[in-house]
């Protein structure tokens, strides 16, 4: 299998009339992680969506080798079914094993997703992400709504992923503890 790789060259993004950033570039090889930092509205989420290929950049290219897994503010879990069945839908598509026990979701598998708290739903989304088995992880505000214990679990999950040769891009305004995490302040690329 070709080693995972994620690189951006000369990226620019426009939302509405406003250009959010220009000339953004980075390259990540296996095992590397990057935290995109910046204040609200500086384009963190837009950058994540551009990297995922869900949004067209105004200029520049994204080079991806490997499948992409994404967690953003929408968990992509059915609200009306128990968490276990909601995750099972993605397991059937992806063929992986979501680390439910690791994320402390064992006793929540029978609870319908709509009764879960924001943090529990986020942990469910992280389980879906990890179960996908994709080498490129894009995380948009992964720590939102998580308590301190779950923050540690999330950081450990990403650390394990990178140690196994995966790549992670984390967009967060909160500190994210990860050995060797590089930082990409979006303010530097504001026009």
């Amino acid at each position, binding site marked *: 299998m070709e080693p995972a790789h994620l690189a951006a060259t000369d990226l620019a993004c426009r939302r509405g009339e406003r250009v959010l950033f220009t000339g953004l570039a980075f390259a990540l090889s296996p095992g590397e992680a990057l935290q995109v930092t910046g204040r609200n509205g500086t384009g963190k989420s837009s950058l994540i969506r551009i990297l*995922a290929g869900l949004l067209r950049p105004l200029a520049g290219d994204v080079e991806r080798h490997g499948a*992409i*897994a994404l967690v953003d503010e929408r*968990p992509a879990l059915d*609200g*009306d079914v128990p968490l276990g069945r909601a995750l099972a839908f993605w397991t*059937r*598509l992806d063929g992986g094993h979501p680390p439910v026990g690791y994320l402390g979701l064992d006793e929540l598998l029978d609870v319908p997703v709509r009764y879960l708290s924001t943090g529990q739903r986020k942990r469910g989304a992280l389980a879906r992400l990890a179960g996908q088995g994709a080498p490129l992880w894009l995380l948009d505000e992964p720590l939102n709504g998580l308590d301190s214990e779950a923050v540690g679990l999330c950081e450990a999950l990403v650390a394990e992923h990178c140690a196994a040769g995966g790549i992670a891009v984390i967009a967060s305004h909160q500190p994210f503890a990860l050995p060797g995490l590089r930082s990409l302040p979006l303010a530097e690329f504001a026009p």
Partner: protein
Amino acid sequence: MTALATILRRDLALLIPGGRRGGALLPVLFFLAVAMLYPFAVGPNAALLARTGGGVLWVAALLAAILPLDRLLASDLERGFFDQWALRGIAEEAVVAVRLLAHWVSFGPPLMLAALPAAALLGLSGATLRTVELGLLAGTPGLAAIGLIIAALTVGLRGGAALGGLLMIPLAVPLLVFGAGALSTGGTAGIALTAAISLLLVAIAPFAAGAAIRGAREG
């Protein structure tokens, strides 16, 4: 292919009457309510009911097709399902084609079943009932396709559900003209034309709705 089968299973669980997304029985009840109310409104004139009843069923079916529009695509887009499918390389067109099948299964056959008691309420003759059933069989896939296209186009709009209903009516007129028209001519030509329009709409729907969903993502 297995991915699409998995998605179809989820769609069916969501959409069929008694399914998780709820309210799937509503179009059928609405359809029956129209058939029940019509005799009250025009009076117990059996000849008049038998002559106009088939057309009323067609109008009821068309309006019933509007009811499920707002829950067809909107919640999956809001919850990020379409983004996740796109990341897995599953095209919007394929997802929408599967959704079209599930949507038709959830409202076409139930309406055809409901047409049996409705025909009894209106005192339709056996031949008229047969023409209505064949017409619905030919026309409901087209109604489902129009509904899906409109649901995709109005998905990001406030008040999209109300607008969707208004948009659907003019687009469904050809189906109504030929489908209900077959009742007065009694021939199969009208039903064949209805089926032809339906096929065309079913062929267009995945591409039109898929493009609309991608467009909504860029917005």
